[in-house]
């Protein structure tokens, strides 16, 4: 529980952060809330040579509604998202997810951008981003969420690239996010998110594979008029969930179906 030595610098702007990352080289890491990075450092599972602290990059802490999208700055904390009236009005599912992240201390520190950059399979926001076709904006480009996540803990981000913003479509309609977990503060063993749009239901799944999954087969069945029960039966199609001490892959597939149905029932 003792981290290895690293250098540390503070950035006050996106430009500074990127410059510091570039100078520090390929083994540098960005630290924002430290929600996942601090445990990894303490366990020495991650041994970066340099940490660039972006907590001072105030320009990335915002929630901006703009036309039919909601732009959220990467440094926005979970607790801010959970409480934000703008988020509750335009994308209440994001507020619902934010309120279920970790415990109050973690929600006060952890950031939206950190979740995207870290790309944990159990992260909640990536599910929302993938199912709603959100866009991730970095210091140099815009990437569709479905293209952003490549594998477990792996994104398209370059070593010196910083997540700056996530652009979500507004979606004020019926929605629900269900996390199945052993303890209130745990990550989801499996999570299921549903959002009603004018064009039909969007369905996403958390922690059923290396990256967040959009359950297109469920969406298609719903569009074709299937009942929630029938549609949710397709939730585990093409999933390759992990087996670990918490749950077997079979059990995760089963949970994907059950949670999808329950989320649809509770949202409608």
């Amino acid at each position, binding site marked *: *529980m*003792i981290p*290895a*030595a690293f250098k540390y610098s503070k950035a006050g702007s996106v430009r500074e952060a990127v410059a510091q990352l570039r100078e520090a080289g390929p083994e540098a890491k960005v630290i924002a809330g430290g929600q996942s990075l601090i445990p990894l450092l303490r366990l020495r599972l991650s041994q970066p040579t340099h940490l660039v602290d972006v907590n001072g990059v105030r320009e990335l802490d915002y929630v901006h509604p703009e036309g039919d999208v909601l732009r959220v700055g990467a440094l926005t904390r979970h607790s801010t998202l959970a409480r934000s009236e703008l988020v509750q009005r335009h994308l209440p599912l994001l507020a619902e997810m934010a309120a279920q992240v970790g415990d109050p201390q973690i929600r006060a520190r952890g950031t939206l951008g950190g979740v995207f950059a870290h790309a944990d399979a159990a992260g909640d926001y990536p599910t929302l981003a993938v199912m709603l076709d959100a866009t991730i904006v970095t210091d140099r480009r815009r990437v569709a969420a479905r293209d952003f996540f490549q594998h477990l803990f792996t994104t398209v981000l370059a070593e010196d690239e910083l997540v700056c913003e996530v652009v979500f479509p507004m979606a004020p309609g019926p929605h629900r996010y269900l996390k199945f977990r*052993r303890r*209130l*503060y745990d990550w989801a063993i499996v999570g299921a998110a549903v959002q009603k749009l004018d064009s039909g239901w969007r369905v996403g799944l958390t922690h059923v594979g290396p990256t967040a999954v959009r359950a297109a087969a469920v969406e298609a069945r719903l569009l074709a008029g299937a009942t929630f029960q029938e549609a949710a039966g397709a939730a585990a199609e093409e999933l390759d969930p992990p087996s670990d001490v918490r*749950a077997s892959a079979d059990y995760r597939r*089963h949970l994907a179906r059950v949670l999808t149905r329950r989320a649809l029932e509770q949202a409608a």
Partner: protein
Amino acid sequence: MAVTQLIGARVQRREDPRLITGHGRFIEDHTLPGLTHLAVVRSPHPHARILGIDSAAARALPGVLAVFTAADFHKVLSGSMPVTPSFAPEKKYVPERFPIAEREVCFQGEPVAVVVAQDRYLAADAADLVQVTYEPLPAVVDPEVAMSPGSPLVHSDGPDNIGWDMTYAGGDIEAAFGRAEVVVKERILQQRLAPTAMEPRGVMASYSPYDEQLTLWLSSQNPHFIRLFVSGAMGIPESRVRVVSPDVGGGFGSKISPYPEDYLVPAASKLLQRPVRWIETRTESVMTTIHGRGQVFTAEAAALRDGTLLGLRLTQVLDLGAYHGTFGAFQACACLMSGGVYRWEAISARTVGVLTNKVPTDPYRGAGRPEGTHLCERMVDRVADELGMDPAELRRKNFAREFPFQNNFGLTYDSGNYDGTLDRALELSDYQGWRRRQASAREEGRLIGVGLSTWVEICGLGPSAPTAAATGGIALVEAAQIRFLPSGSVAAYVGTHAHGQGHDTTFSQLVAETLGVPLEAVDLRHGDTAEGPSFGYGTYGSRSLAVGGMALYTASQEILAKARKLAAHLLEAAPDDLEFTEGAFTVRGNPQAKKTIQEVALASYGGSLPQGMEQGLEAVSHFDPPNFVWPFGAHVCVVEVDRETGAVEILSYTGVDDCGNVINPMIVEGQVQGGIAQSIAQALFEEVVYDGESGQLLTGTMLDYLVPTMNELPTPKLDRTVTPSPTNALGVKGIGEAGTIAASAAVINAVCDALRPLGIHHVDMPASPDRLWRLMQEAGR
């Protein structure tokens, strides 16, 4: 100052203002000038030969003072770490254990080298640079595999992996089974648990070469035993070793036995001639602090059709780990207590201690008694299930009712009223109401279950004859010393050790009440071998009040006896003519003739004492209890199992316990609540998992080892009955482990009751959702 009744009062814990405002002083809060920091290099393998250790890179790191291996430690340490007879006196194989591995490592986490550096970060960095070359050897982590012929050997030079194999015979088991009209069999697992004290272990040592004095600060439940063990291993006279166990953030049994670091840190201090401190990380704690439970039971119960219990035959396979825990065989008391609160014609219990390539097991809150209770209460429920009887009715039919009650193994339960706690628990839990709700829920396809646990425990270790045999020499009695200082303040020293139990409050209440002084006048001290009685026996096994409290009580009585003589002298009356009430001696019939005990205390340091009386007012007393004490109770748990996900929700939890007379009801309730929480944790959440193939620990962080939080735990409804113990003058028993002993059986019986309509009769712990889902899937096929 007049004193009102303190015994039985809800006095607020006097230690709390300090502890909850962050002013506790734990090991890491202690420092010394010139302090150095130690990190341990540990084996990543469950079993391997050490081919070589290259510490050059570590030594070259600036700020690193030394890297020590077994060869260095042999210069200052000798002997093997202690193993007591406990309940398995005839051991077949006890592997030697030096605190650090030399040629072979036998569990993941076993120390191989230590690094001492100027700060903790450097020590950790340098530990990473120590290159150890291993040749992996075949490992075995499953005790049932380890005990079978052809298993890999846990120690490559061992004869086999059998630590002990013995049978306790209690009555004619063949005759009992011969009369049986119904026999049920079950295989019951007790998963390994990690005790998870809030404060991990820690040791700071300062060896002074000039006067050959060693001072150890250490997070321990029994500092005097550590002094005995460490002084022996280091060849330093016991009188020159001081062990201080200051505020300790929880133990749960995991801080009883000596650990390798308890020897390595002082030895490193002697080798370096610098003070050295080691603080266990949480990762080290899960991997290398002892585990609890780790047992597999196979059991058969025989009964008559009317529900009369006849016989119980069982085998306990106890996963010892790579070495015997110092008190590891204590856990065999599961066998001796497997009959619970019932009358059986006969019980036959075989216990097999099996070595595996894992960290040793040792007593963990309850230590054998939760396992015995869980086994008994599961088997009794299985009999009721088989006969279609209400489990409460079957229990009542078989309760022991005449006390003292001698169980099948000759242990004598001092007092009990099992009907009383059961009746109250059924009433408080609305048992009949839940049975009705259960029936209607079942019609809707919902799975509600009601589970009972009627439990008894052996605690208050203990009488000198059996406990001296169990430790191999030292009786687990208790010592206390009480001193009146001239000003009338009272210093009370006791050989037990508080690490969450609230002794500062309970014991002060007891001393203040007995001596008739204000609570504030009593200063309760423990945990430092430099003060108080010559030996203290520590806190474990719910012994502190029934043995340590009694030692304080008997010391108080000695003081009162002397004070009475002195007061009589001062009042010019006969000692027998004095009354002692509210802290003052008065002459019977003449209330004006009065001396408070504090006035007597001052006079005791003066010049006008009766002839032959020495100055001072103090006493040292040892209490050797005539028997153990036997708390008991009845718990009722109601659960609902989610038929789709297997998730268990506790709908209601009720505990009615009887620990005899109560000094502080608030502290008793806190102990029961905490115990229930820890036992629900076993029933539903916690499990140490090793990979069967690689022998690697899979639950090495708090992310994977699921300690539940307040969010996952119910607020239990609690009540008490009071059946005083005849074993001691205070009429007290113990309560520290009660909840842990009671609850797992109540929860699992409830889960099994919920799943009964599906044809499921037994569920192992933890009853996790994936496990229950799998069982329901299999039952549905």
